[in-house]
């Protein structure tokens, strides 16, 4: 049975939505989530991003990518938060953008979404943050990620 916009709004209206249950709406909910992500209600947009991250599939990654380009920090923060739920194979492109975000909260959640196995490109970004990140807790988190991946916490020297 097709999922309606009203059904999607209904599961996201609560102060504390139950995302595991809401995710059972499945991929048919994604077009409606896109509408909410592109809308003016940042609370609903943020929740829509989180739900999108809980629905398996490449189209979810597209919505998180859309959210990562939002002008609204709350929506980008939600995208970075939700990135942890994406398969590692589709997470990298999103992380590369989010790790460069101007917003501290976005960078924090992006760092937290970095998978145990770090690609060279992501590792380079994280390594750069371990030196340049303005907030000490995020610098420390960056270094932990680099150490966890078995490398140095220094960015590669330019050749």
């Amino acid at each position: 049975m097709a999922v309606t916009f009203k059904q999607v709004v209904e599961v996201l209206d609560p102060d504390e939505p139950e995302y595991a249950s809401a995710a059972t709406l499945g991929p048919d909910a994604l077009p409606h989530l896109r509408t909410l992500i592109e809308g003016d209600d940042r609370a609903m947009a943020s929740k829509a991003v989180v739900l999108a991250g809980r629905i398996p599939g490449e189209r979810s990654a597209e919505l998180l990518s859309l959210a990562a380009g939002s002008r609204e920090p709350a929506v980008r923060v939600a995208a970075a938060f939700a990135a942890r739920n994406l398969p590692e194979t589709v997470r990298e492109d999103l992380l590369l953008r989010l790790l460069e975000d101007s917003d501290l909260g976005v960078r924090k959640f992006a760092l937290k979404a970095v998978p145990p196995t770090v690609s060279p490109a992501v590792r380079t970004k994280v390594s750069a943050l371990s030196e340049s990140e303005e907030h000490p807790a995020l610098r420390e988190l960056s270094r932990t990620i680099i150490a966890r991946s078995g490398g140095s916490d220094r960015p590669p020297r330019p050749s």
Partner: protein
Amino acid sequence: MIVGLGIKRTGDWTSSFVQDLDTQGFLKRTQELFDKRGLRLLYFTTYMSGRQRRWAGVYRSGNWGHRFIHDMSSDTFVKTTQKLFDDEGLRLEAMDTYVQGGKQLWAGSYRSGDWGHRLHIDRSRQAIIDESNALHKQGLRLTTVRTYVKNGQQMWAGIYRSGNWGNRLLLDRDFASFAKDTQDLFDTEGLRLVDVTSYMVDGKRRWAAICRSGDWGIRWFFALNRQHFAAVNQALFDEQKLRLTAMSYWDQLVPTVRLHVKTLVEPDIPIDTMVANMRTVFATAGIGVEVASRESLSLPALEDLDVGELSEATEEEQELWSHRNNVETNELPVYFVRNAPGLNGEALFIDGQPGCMVASYASNWTLAHEIGHLLDLPHCDDPKPPDPNAVPALLDRLMTGRGTGKITNPPPDLIKSEVTEMLASKYSIDS
């Protein structure tokens, strides 16, 4: 807890209200309001907060002469009142009496005028009734009444003023009959409540009041603590332009939720509005809400809080919950953050420590809803869709799980079983 009853009426004058000032602070503030804003003390009351004497006052714009005296013995008060009348034409307009150092003391505020005027103190209950009736026939109306205990006897004092309006004195009412009788007098005779005082008789709280004829709009309100009093007073001014003209404060045990507001980021809806809304709905359960402290927390890395999957507390939630400055046993911290991805708010016990978080985009009622959870209230309409066993939404209830932003009949309801649960919670402290 100091609870209060305020009387408000329509009017177009500049008005100001102060409370919780010590004697010197009250004198200074009264003088400042006179000097800088031309405001005259209209009404005042004094009460004890812990072991400290405190004063509350209502001021209004005007151009009359004005005087305030305090800490007078009964004899001195009567003599001073007569002298101010004889020498300066000042009439006693408001008074209060209190015990300090074992002595019955008096305070009064006076204003210039041309009306007839009388002060009677140390009257028995029957005497004040008989005198007020007799003086009524002579064209003097009782405008203020106070009661106190002298040599084990309940005594009464009254201020009279010349006039030809309808007037009624109510004595020894319990709260229900006070509320009913003042409403009946308004409905049947057009009499407006103008003065009220509360006192104890044989271990029971009683109210005395004066109602008079008039054509102004009037509203009285009851508040569960002084913050509640100030908030309701301000709201009635903002929304209905009603001016405070009289009030009575008294000490009474009130189940109270004591909040510690800890702000990382100011929310879209002002915190004071959320607290006021919470007070409104909790007051329907007879529970007061008091903001015990306010603190700004500079924790940039926690402004966007990692709430994980809600199954267990995240490291960030644990860190945030550890900021408990000033929070005593059975008191509740509330943390205002910028984002909590996917949530408007949450209530958690971490290592047995209660607390809640509210995101910047939360609704008017999210704070009250989350505190409701901490007081053991579950959602009233779970399970929710898309669960096949979902029940209909109850959007007129505070504890709806379908989104407090959709509440349809503000203030939302608390049902009897919820009130019972809240009153049994250790976080509604009798104070």
